[in-house]
């Protein structure tokens, strides 16, 4: 009996000593973390996508608390959680956030298999990165989509997929969180994160070709040839600029009047998420070409 008692006492003392050591250690080596960081992290989506520009959701939480202590949450946005989450974060740190306009990924290329003929077959690794590096892809356009789907592989939300008929990626605007992973993955910078626009409507030049007009014209049916008609048409709002033989529409200045779409002789400008046009009586050839090309984009058929 005394042996059992001895064993119990010895173990009990060892346990007590260990407990005291641990108690001391937990206080001596405690890491003090601002409790707000944990609170902010709890309301974040936990996708760890990096879309905010910080290493994971915990990194973003720490950055938000740090920014809050400096007075403002300006520039901090979780694209996945969006406005709703940022408002919760603001609540926790005791600030308020200005409403930020939602954004979406846009593939600025309409060089489908039909519009942009293949001139060679790339018999190597089918990734955009390698094709861009070892050659200029399978078409004569050095700026357009390479069609191997590095963007599809980069998306963590399943919001972008390859259309096998056109050979171009398509963005599912409901799933897209504008985190920017696809834009970073594209070696040619074809994908742009743009303002989604009121009711998801926006005007975009679907071309990335910076070659002179005559050259661009030869490589793709819907290439921007840098003629500048759209720039002239938008003299009222001055939303379009021409640089390096390529037109660009400033989303903040654009008033969605669609005049540029009609003016473009190549059908390079597209209207996203507008209701289908009522058939006009004598339609101008440019407008016909534009709507003809535009129906290739499935987004256009969605009701506003």
């Amino acid at each position: 009996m005394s042996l059992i008692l001895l064993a119990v006492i010895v173990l009990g003392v060892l346990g007590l000593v260990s407990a005291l050591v641990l108690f001391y250690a937990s206080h001596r080596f405690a890491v003090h973390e601002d409790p707000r960081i944990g609170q902010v992290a709890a309301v974040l989506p936990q996708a760890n996508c990096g879309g905010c520009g910080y290493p994971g959701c915990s990194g973003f939480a720490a950055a938000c608390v740090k920014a809050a202590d400096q007075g403002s949450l300006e520039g901090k946005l979780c694209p996945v959680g969006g406005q709703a989450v940022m408002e919760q974060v603001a609540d926790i740190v005791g600030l308020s956030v200005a409403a930020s306009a939602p954004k979406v990924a846009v593939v600025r290329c309409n060089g489908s298999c039909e519009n942009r003929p293949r001139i060679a077959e790339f018999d190597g690794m089918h990734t955009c990165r390698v094709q861009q590096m070892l050659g200029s892809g399978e078409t004569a356009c050095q700026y357009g989509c390479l069609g191997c789907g590095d963007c599809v592989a980069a998306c963590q939300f399943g919001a972008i997929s390859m259309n096998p008929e056109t050979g171009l990626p398509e963005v599912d605007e409901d799933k897209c969180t504008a985190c920017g992973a696809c834009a970073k993955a594209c070696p040619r910078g074809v994908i742009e994160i743009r303002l989604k626009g009121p009711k998801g409507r926006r005007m975009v030049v679907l071309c990335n070709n910076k070659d002179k007009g005559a050259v661009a014209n030869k490589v793709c049916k819907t290439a921007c040839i840098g003629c500048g008609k759209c720039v002239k048409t938008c003299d009222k709002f001055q939303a379009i600029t021409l640089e390096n033989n390529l037109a660009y529409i400033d989303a903040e200045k654009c008033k969605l009047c669609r005049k540029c779409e009609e003016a473009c002789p190549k059908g390079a400008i597209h209207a996203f998420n507008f209701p289908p046009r009522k058939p006009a009586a004598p339609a101008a050839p440019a407008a016909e070409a534009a709507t003809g090309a535009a129906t290739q984009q499935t987004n256009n058929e969605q009701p506003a």
Partner: protein
Amino acid sequence: MKTFRIGGVHPEENKLTADKPIRDAMLPKQAVFSMFQHIGAPAKPVVKKGDKVKVGTLLAEAGGFVSAPVHSSVSGTVNKVDSVLDASGTRRAAIYVDVEGDEWEESIDRSGKLVRLSDRPDLDSKTIVEKIKNAGIVGMGGATFPCHVKLTPPPGCKAECVIINAVECEPYLTADHRLMLEHPDEILVGVSLIMKAVNVERGYIGIENNKPDAIRLMTEKARKDYPQIEVVPLQMKYPQGGEKQLIDAVIGRQVPAPPAIPIHVGAVVQNVGTAFAIYEAVMLNKPLVDRIITVTGKTVSNPGNLRARLGTSMQQLMDECGGLPADAGKIISGGPMMGKTLMSLEVPMTKGSSGLLIMDMKEARRAEPQPCIRCGKCVRACAMGLEPYLLATLSAHAEWERAEQEDIVSCIECGCCQFSCPSKRPLADNIRSGKQKVMGIIRSRAAQAKKQ
């Protein structure tokens, strides 16, 4: 017989044109001169539309120290200063010249008489390097590194010997072989010019032993007039023609990992075609305006070694050799191991165009890659002692930090790994892409450090 110690593979030689003497290609109707014919800053045009030029007239000056000027290889009128889709697959700046006649600049010696070093006691090291620079000479093996830069050792480095690369280890290519058989005297003068330029007493000419006639001829000539130049026969193994492999085989020294370069072990390596061009530049005042290009392929009807003017389109060279074969699969500028596939034959010939190779569909088509079976053949084959299976995986998964640690920048892109892989995995493609990315990261890191 000497050889390099690490790795190597044995592709089929296919030297179909080894016994075809050099023949002059026809003058083109229009010559297109790329501003990107060398490593370094692009050349800057100094002519404009309408200017009249002769063979040897300066078209564009060097864009910096590591750069080279471009001279006209034809006489005629400048049509435009525009851009062209060149061998890189991208559209880049070029000068178009419409050809009229064949008038050469008066300063160029066209007599055909051999000029020896002893005939020109006025030439010193500085003058030789200056003439090489002004003639626009770049590495003719295909690397196109500006020659005068290599012949100007950085401070603290001293050249101990010159090694001439007459190996031509790429299958199919025979330009250097024919050059040695037909112009051995000029080559030897060129070699002694290089030796004088870097002030060394010893020169070596490395030749693979699949060219016994060239070895015999060059050894005979060197023994007679050039006791300080030794011809070194080398075992046939790809990539013996790689700079670092050549240095290892000939003088037994291994160049450390980048940023070290051959001059750090005292070696100056130049291609034998470059030595010939240096002879013409220094002794005949002839800038770099033409080169030997091997047009070859198993289905080409009239393959050969053509002396063609720079700026001639590959289409024309193809037509002179029987035209593009019906079942052509790939058109390669260079050799099958390290050459670049062309998307079109309307690409102009440049200083580095050593070959035009046509492969039929069967030869060109790649097999479907299978999973890696961890056999280690790639490691055994790698001529730089790297681990290709690992570097390829790291590149595919974008692990740049680890790739840098595993020395991806030492890769010479020879293709031995991809050649030896039984699963036909695209190892070299992956590693090349990763190496470019890592070199970009290193460059931007250095640029950032400089700013601070």
